[in-house]
């Protein structure tokens, strides 16, 4: 049974694309077939983060409009063989996405893949509502910061009203992914902590991604952090989130790159 997940946030720059790429790669590394779909028409970036920017020939718009077949637009990842990318168009705008066309493409993707991860554009307009429209569940990426939390709350409202599931009166499962978390600053009262964010948004937590230089390094390299730095704290956090998405119950921790004193003395890398 394929699962369609929308990765959304309302606010831009919180880590939707990074998280889509990292989660997609982590899921694919478990042997499942995964496609990451860029819905940010006109401002595509998932191709860049996935390191496939020079391999894009056709895109989502071409498939939605029916000018080419889905299989012609899918780009297979060179590192993880069950991972595919469906890029967005860079030259068209979101109005080129038709509702029926998107429904048809999502339907076709459901037949081909175990997981379909839709990277939503920022904002609450057409592009974002189309990306969430046919989802079975949503991942809401939030930074522990006031504007991000506010926009997430708004997106949660849309997920509960503008999606196919909501219109059928069904419950839309929502998972909160807190990104760019700095446990030290939260402990010192300088940053909203996990409990604050959970209490305000009241949706279940699927993962905590620590602020990490490996994430920027990964996008510099065009390789999801779960591929480029498998052992890093951020990658381990994404791997755990991916396993929770599959239904595994794993204790919620905040992975850290910091070495303990003993590890430092003996030069070992903290696990």
């Amino acid at each position, binding site marked *: 049974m394929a699962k369609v997940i929308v990765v959304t946030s309302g606010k831009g720059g919180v880590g939707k694309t990074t998280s889509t790429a990292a989660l997609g790669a982590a899921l694919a590394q478990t042997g499942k077939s995964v496609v990451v779909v860029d819905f940010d028409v006109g401002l595509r970036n998932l191709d860049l983060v996935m390191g496939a920017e020079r391999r894009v020939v056709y895109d989502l718009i071409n498939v939605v409009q029916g000018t080419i077949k889905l299989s012609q637009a899918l780009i297979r990842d060179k590192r993880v063989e069950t991972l595919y990318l469906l890029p967005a168009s860079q030259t068209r705008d979101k109005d080129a996405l038709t509702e029926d066309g998107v429904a048809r493409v999502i339907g076709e993707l459901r037949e081909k893949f175990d997981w379909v991860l839709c990277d939503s554009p920022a904002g609450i307009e057409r592009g974002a509502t189309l990306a969430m429209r046919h989802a079975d569940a949503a991942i809401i990426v939030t930074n522990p*910061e*006031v504007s991000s*939390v*506010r926009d997430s*709350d*708004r997106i949660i*409202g849309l997920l509960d*009203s503008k999606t196919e599931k909501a219109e059928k009166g069904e419950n839309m499962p929502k998972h909160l992914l807190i990104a760019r978390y700095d446990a030290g600053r*939260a402990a*010192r*009262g*300088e*940053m*909203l*902590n996990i409990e*604050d964010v959970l209490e*305000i948004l*009241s949706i279940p937590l699927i993962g905590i991604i620590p602020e990490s230089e490996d994430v920027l390094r990964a996008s510099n390299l065009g390789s999801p952090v779960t591929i480029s730095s498998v052992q890093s704290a951020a990658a381990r956090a994404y791997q755990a989130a991916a396993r929770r998405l599959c239904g595994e119950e794993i204790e919620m921790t905040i992975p850290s790159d910091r070495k303990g004193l003993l590890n430092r003395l003996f030069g070992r890398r903290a696990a």
Partner: protein
Amino acid sequence: MSFFGFMRRRNSAPVARERLQILLEYERRIISQSDLVAVLRQEILAVVSRHVSVDPDKVQVKVDRGAKVSTLEVDIEFPNAGANAAHA
């Protein structure tokens, strides 16, 4: 920076939390009201109007969004049969 200034600078997270709680409570109310209440009001009015004559201004729909459940309060005022007969 004074000691108190230092403390204030440090503990900005509780301020963020409180601001968000107040703001979101308000925003959830107005957003849900702007959409849902308008739709409910219109549809309820249409149904009731099929059976009794209702002055649209005498229909009040309120939604109270709680943590676990929300309540919908519909208040419709319409003239009773006696009053209608007297007018007729």
